[in-house]
């Protein structure tokens, strides 16, 4: 086989590479991440750094245990990106060990147990996020209201170290429910949506992301800008994000139209929680989403449906992580069933036939 590999073309190559892809995704994540540091202050920055470093170290450890070459794989950027995405979904003031445990879960359980890059069935960041949520529900749902980094009221560099590393801080003073969490709680207390919405963040704050929520998820606008950049660079295709967002919008609008008091409007679904991050950065993960365009549309639509169902009728206020993982499990099935039509064949694989065929052949 090796001789075959060295002797045939093509002898030219497109300007693509895994490292380039990963770098573009990180670049696209940058605005929302920096915004997260800004509104949640130093603790967010510390947690982010810890998570990414833990991810890199876990990757290095796994590679060396597996006997794979460490350098090329470690520097392809995939481990950094996994850590980065995980950090963006964490409560910004979560203690350091949440980041570390999460990174280990993502890299070891989510990725290397399956055989490393390209082999994992589930999105590693979401494996970690969901495992953390189930195992440490308190730490994973303690949100803080925005504490801009330069605001005198926000904790400084040293105080922030205490928050991240000892957790010895009066979180009650600054904690606040996320928009989706607040709505869920109020609805469960039979308080109408009208009233519930007056006591939480307004439309502009929600869209801009000046609310309490995960480290890098709240600013839907900045995440959306990053996502559009990836579309422009053709790093991702439109199929998953568009089908997912359209599905969420259509279903939530329908229910909101039927019962405006019991179901929130589409804009809250679209611009709160992990919707944008999920649609553009999580569900589009190349490894764990279908390979055909039709398959991607099905995948995105079902993801969107699950997000709405979980947020609306299940016990959790946010359903992105669960939805993506459930759909990841369906991906092999979608890829098996949905295949492109082969040139010169019909959908069933039989050679195409034209009425003229028979006329053209004399024999």
């Amino acid at each position, binding site marked *: 086989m090796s001789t*075959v590999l060295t*002797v045939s073309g093509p002898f030219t190559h497109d300007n693509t590479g895994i490292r380039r892809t990963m770098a573009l995704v990180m670049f696209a994540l940058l605005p929302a991440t920096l915004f997260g540091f800004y509104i949640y202050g130093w603790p967010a920055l510390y947690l982010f750094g810890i998570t990414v470093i833990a991810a890199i170290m876990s990757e290095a450890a796994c590679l060396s245990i597996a006997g794979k070459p460490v350098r090329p794989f470690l520097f392809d950027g995939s481990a950094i990106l996994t850590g980065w995405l995980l950090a963006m979904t964490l409560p910004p003031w979560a203690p350091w060990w949440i980041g570390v445990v999460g990174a280990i879960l993502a890299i070891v359980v989510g990725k290397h147990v399956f055989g490393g890059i390209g082999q994992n069935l589930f999105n590693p960041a979401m494996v970690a996020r969901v495992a953390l949520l189930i195992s440490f529900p308190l730490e994973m749902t303690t949100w803080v209201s925005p504490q801009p980094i330069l605001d005198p009221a926000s904790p400084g560099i040293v105080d922030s170290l205490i928050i991240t590393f000892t957790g010895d801080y009066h979180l009650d003073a600054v904690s606040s429910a996320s928009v989706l969490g607040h709505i869920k709680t109020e609805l469960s207390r039979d308080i109408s949506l009208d009233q519930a919405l007056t006591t939480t963040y307004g439309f502009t704050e929600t869209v801009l992301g000046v609310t309490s929520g995960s480290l890098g998820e709240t600013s839907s606008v900045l995440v959306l800008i990053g996502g559009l950049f990836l579309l422009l660079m053709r790093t991702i295709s439109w199929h998953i994000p568009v089908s997912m967002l359209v599905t969420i919008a259509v279903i939530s609008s329908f229910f909101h139209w039927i019962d405006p008091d019991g179901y929130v409007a589409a804009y809250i679904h679209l611009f709160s929680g992990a919707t944008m991050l999920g649609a553009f950065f999580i569900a589009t993960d190349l490894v764990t989403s279908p390979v055909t365009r039709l398959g991607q549309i099905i995948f995105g639509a079902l993801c969107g449906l699950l997000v709405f169902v979980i947020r609306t009728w299940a016990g959790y206020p946010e359903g992105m992580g669960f939805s993506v993982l459930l759909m990841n499990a369906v991906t092999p099935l979608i890829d098996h069933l949905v295949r492109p039509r082969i040139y010169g064949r019909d959908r069933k694989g039989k050679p195409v036939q034209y009425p003229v065929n028979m006329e053209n052949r004399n024999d």
Partner: protein
Amino acid sequence: MRGLKLFKIRGGVHPNANKQATHDRNIAKLPVPGLLRIPLLQHIGSPAQPVVKLGDYVLKGQLLARPQGAISAPVHAPTSGKIVSIGKYQAPHPSGLPVPTITLKTDGKDEWTQTWEYEDPFQMEPAKIAEIVANAGIVGMGGATFPSAVKLGLRNRYQLEKLIINGAECEPYLTCDSRLMQEHAAEIIDGIRIMMHALGVTETLIAVEKNKPDAITSLEQAAGDHPGIKVVGVPVQYPMGSEKHLTQTLIGKETPARALTADLGVVVHNVATAYAIHDALRNSRPLISRIVTVTGAAIQNPGNYQVLIGTPVSHIIDCCGGLKNDPEKLILGGPMMGQPLPSTKVPIIKGSGGILALTSKEVPMKDPSPCIRCASCVNVCPCGLLPLEMAIRAKAGDLDGAAEYGLMDCISCGSCSYVCPSHIPLVQYFNYAKGALTEKQRAQHKQEEIKRLIEARKERMEKQAKAKKEKLARRKAEMAEKKKQVSETSA
């Protein structure tokens, strides 16, 4: 040409054309080398059979080897000289394995032999044109090297409507067809008219990628008001030059799997083939030379050259001023589907459109890394295949699994390998698997055939044994009857 509706083809890639170095270089004649190595297998099919002996003196255009079998092509002397060897010599194929080759020591006189009498091709029977094309040793000049006469004979089996002339030249670097179209448009049009007569069609579409406006203009001028000949600018998209995809672009129909474009009433020939047919019918000349693009950053003087078949690559490179620096790769053909040269000693053959000496900068090769299922290969595959799934199976030796994913529908265009961010040599796996699968199917067929014969023999033997037994029983009965009769009569 304007107003013809074109149809989209799936996928494809847009590699950097890199044609600027040779695009404006006129075709120049290359000096005749001292020795010509003329392989007897320059086409798809069986090798030609030598008709000359060691030490024979041959004239330019004289038959050296005649075709053998239904699909084959003759080989002629590219110049005058003496036959100094008939044996095996390294072929321009990546295997580097030797093929039957005649070596000709040139005498520099370049003296022509008498070939065949000129006759007006338009007064000829179509079959006669195909016969001359066959005698001239013309094969598909685009690289497929399928004997052209066989394709001209398709009218006997199919109702043909259209001739498509492939001047797409979608391979990067190559400009030989482009130059030919610019400098010899009238000859190409004449060759096309002869082919139309031979095929019995009234309509021809000449397809040229839109990045060659000069070639389009020249052809349009030469075509003038010949009824039925249209020049069509087609999108710049690799692999536009694939016969089946070009046909789809022009007439909107896919060639059914495992069938020929003739099933759609279409025959496709390369522009250089049209030129060769003109030369054979009008000037009574067999195919003994071709235009070759010599280029790449390592070549001193890139250009387009008219090269005698059998000219060693080293001679061509020397005539182009030699190599500037050590090339990373020496390639025969284009960078997408061409083949690496095993050495510069190998000769140019009828299907070689280019010699590329590429530097390491031009060949961005990296070690493959694992597949990340990014689906780039799925999106660019012009055949609607799933290269990533096929590769997993081919790599694991699961040939049937790869075939189930459409391995045999792959045209080996290499678009998947070109875009793969992990630099996985996808098309290389497929070429290997296709070869292995064909081999396996052949073996299986053989085994089934043997089994069938054994069973047939067994059945035959049983039948014979049964017949024998019956015959014996019958005779026994007869004897008994006779005996009885005898005893009765005697009684």
